[in-house]
């Protein structure tokens, strides 16, 4: 052996250098693959986010039209009683129509008049109604009021409808363009921040549709989910990890929990329909039931995360506590639980984030519904953010495409906030050894 090395030292060195080079090259290649994978992921994410933002940013603004409204006492309150019921019943839409007819006295045909009033959102009457209800002194006065335009006018002003297209291909016709141009020339058309998107519930008119109903529904649902899944999940995990004997039964339970975490979410919806609605007789479409179903869905995730967190607490801590005479319960509540809390919270929040994005189980318990009123309690009919997105994306009106993008942004903001909370909590409570 030694002879061979001695007789041919050069060759050996040559081989090892070559091999070394190959190994470095392999490592460089491997790194490059990893980097490429990350770049690809970032590119896809960027594409996704930018397409959502491009689609949705325009929903945060809304075109408004200024009208000289005469709050005619003859129309609103002919008897002068100022009775809230009378004020609520009045035909406020007529005030809007009159203001428009006054601006364009040349429009006389019934069909044209109808199209002229179509420039303004059908909700404009309700804007005036709210103004008068808040401030009855307005009656009899004439005031400039900014009202929302209809969704087609809004799209046109924002430039989504090309005025060079042949008229039969446009939803805005030539005379309507002339009216808008005339209004714009007077400075009576403006695109402003659409605050009502954040303060109203759903609507079939894109310009009036808001996200608040779905946000409130999501919050109510998640409160129930958290209240149920966090204590139940933590208790189950504490028992399984700290107290339960290791035998065939606990093994069976463990396997089942792991399997439940992988069960498709719609199955939990079926369970909710059968147990909560049909057997217990709870109301349909209620956040209470939605929260219960989602709690069932997130429970296995919470248990698994909590168990992992308990298992990662070093056994020396438990032994030390037991060694100085603490009971098993004291060991758990005084030492193990606080140390495991960051992991438990992270697992819970990730489970909640998943619950926030679910629609499938809610379909079966009736939360995929058109709900206008903002839910005020856990038993009111409600819908949630992802369902709102689903309903809007399915609506024929073109302006709902932008609303969909905006709703996705709101949902993403919620998810980022929840994940940020998880990071903060972990940083705050984390302890290292």
């Amino acid at each position: 052996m030694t002879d061979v090395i001695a007789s041919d030292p050069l060759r050996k060195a040559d081989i090892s250098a070559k091999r070394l080079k190959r190994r470095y090259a392999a490592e460089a290649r491997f790194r490059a693959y990893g980097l490429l994978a990350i770049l690809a992921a970032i590119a896809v994410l960027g594409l996704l986010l930018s397409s959502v933002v491009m689609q949705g940013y325009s929903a945060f603004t809304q075109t408004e039209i200024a009208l000289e409204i005469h709050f005619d006492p003859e129309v609103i309150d002919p008897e002068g009683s100022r009775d809230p019921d009378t004020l609520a019943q009045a035909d406020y839409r007529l005030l809007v129509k009159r203001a428009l007819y006054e601006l364009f006295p040349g429009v006389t045909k019934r069909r044209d008049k109808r199209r002229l009033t179509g420039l303004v959102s059908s909700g404009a009457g309700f804007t005036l109604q709210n103004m008068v209800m808040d401030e009855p002194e307005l009656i009899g006065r004439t005031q400039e009021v900014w009202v929302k335009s209809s969704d087609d006018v809004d799209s046109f002003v924002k430039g989504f409808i090309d005025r060079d297209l042949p008229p039969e291909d446009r939803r805005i016709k030539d005379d309507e363009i002339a009216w808008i141009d005339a209004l714009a020339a007077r400075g009576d058309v403006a695109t402003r921040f659409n605050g009502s998107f954040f303060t109203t519930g759903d609507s079939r008119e894109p310009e009036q549709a808001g996200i608040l109903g779905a946000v409130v529904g999501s919050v109510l649902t998640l409160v129930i989910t958290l209240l149920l899944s966090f204590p139940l999940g933590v208790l189950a995990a504490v028992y399984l990890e700290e107290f339960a004997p290791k035998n065939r039964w606990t093994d069976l339970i463990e396997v089942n929990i792991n399997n439940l975490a992988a069960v498709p979410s719609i199955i939990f919806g079926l369970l909710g329909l059968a147990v909560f609605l049909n057997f217990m007789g709870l109301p349909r479409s209620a956040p209470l039931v939605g929260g219960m179903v989602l709690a069932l869905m997130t429970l296995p995730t919470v248990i698994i995360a909590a168990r992992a967190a308990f298992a990662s607490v070093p056994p020396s801590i438990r032994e030390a506590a037991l060694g100085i005479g603490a009971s098993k319960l004291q060991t758990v509540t005084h030492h193990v639980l606080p140390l495991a809390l960051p992991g438990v919270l992270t697992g819970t929040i990730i489970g909640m984030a998943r619950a926030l994005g679910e629609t499938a189980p809610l379909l079966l318990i009736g939360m995929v519904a058109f709900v206008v009123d903002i839910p005020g309690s856990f038993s009111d009919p409600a819908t949630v953010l992802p369902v709102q997105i689903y309903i809007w994306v399915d609506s024929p009106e073109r302006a709902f495409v932008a609303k969909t993008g905006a709703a996705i942004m709101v949902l993403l903001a919620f998810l980022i906030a929840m994940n940020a909370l998880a990071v903060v909590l972990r940083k705050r409570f984390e302890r290292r050894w």
Partner: protein
Amino acid sequence: MIKKTLVAAVAAALTLSAAQAFAQNRSQIRIVGSSTVFPFSTAVAEQFGRATKFKTPVVESTGSGGGMKLFCAGVGVEHPDITNASRRIKASEFEKCTKGGITITEVKIGFDGIVLANSKSSPPLELTKKQIYQALAKEVPLGGKMVPNPYKKWSDIDPSLPNARIEVLGPPPTSGTRDAFVELAMEGGARTFDSLKALRKADKKAFKAAAHAIREDGAYVEAGENDNLIVQKLEANPNAIGIFGFSFLDQNADKIQGAAIGGVEPSFENIAAGDYGISRSMYFYVKKEHVGVIPGIAEFVAEFTSEKASGEEGYLTDKGLIPLPAAERKTVRSGATKLAPLTM
């Protein structure tokens, strides 16, 4: 210790009973049913909620069949008051409803056309029901017997059609639009063949099986229930043809064009007049037992059938509803306000 356990037990019992107390009452109307009627039903619900002192009805889109199932389950606050349908109630469903002690009032709302449309960047199409059947059926009669659909290009069917691959995006079998399309277009096309006509007389079931089967070799793509998605795909692929409701054509007239069926364009006027071949009626059904128990049902029905909603210039026509002829509207309205029970 025992005390603490007791407290926990009492708390649990309280939660349960509180949960049950939620179920006792309901002050708003609940509507379920067809996704085709959903846009119209919701528009009326919103208008109703704003203009009256009643709460806004809650509308769920469950599909016509799913809605009927919920609707016919029984009488009581936990069951819906109204169901929408893009087809008439079936005899079996009617029977189930009657058995559940339910008296139904049927209200016809209007029509919906099903259109075949392609991108504006390609030439407009003109099809017949026969050609639609030949393009999409799983098996077609050829040389006296049924053979697996051999047509790959439109021009294989008829030289006057474009020389392009058959590529149709349409709804999945769970959709009511698909049901109506199969019944009106495919069956209509199948009847133009003598052999299938004879089969229809001899064995109705076998005829239906032959006429309703859509090919599965990739020429027909199930594009999901989302019609907006189909419109986007048509824009991207000028050779593809999409199948969806008229309101989507109406909203996207700058991007897509509807194919004329048997020489008739899918326009508002043609569908309203009944000239366009693939159109269906839409209905909703009211549970008479709930009128007076759940507040506002009679008023809601009145709003839906009013001239300002489903008339020729009503707000529902802005949403794409094709209204009934004036005379029929009148009879429907009087039947609806009287809540005349449906008999079958």
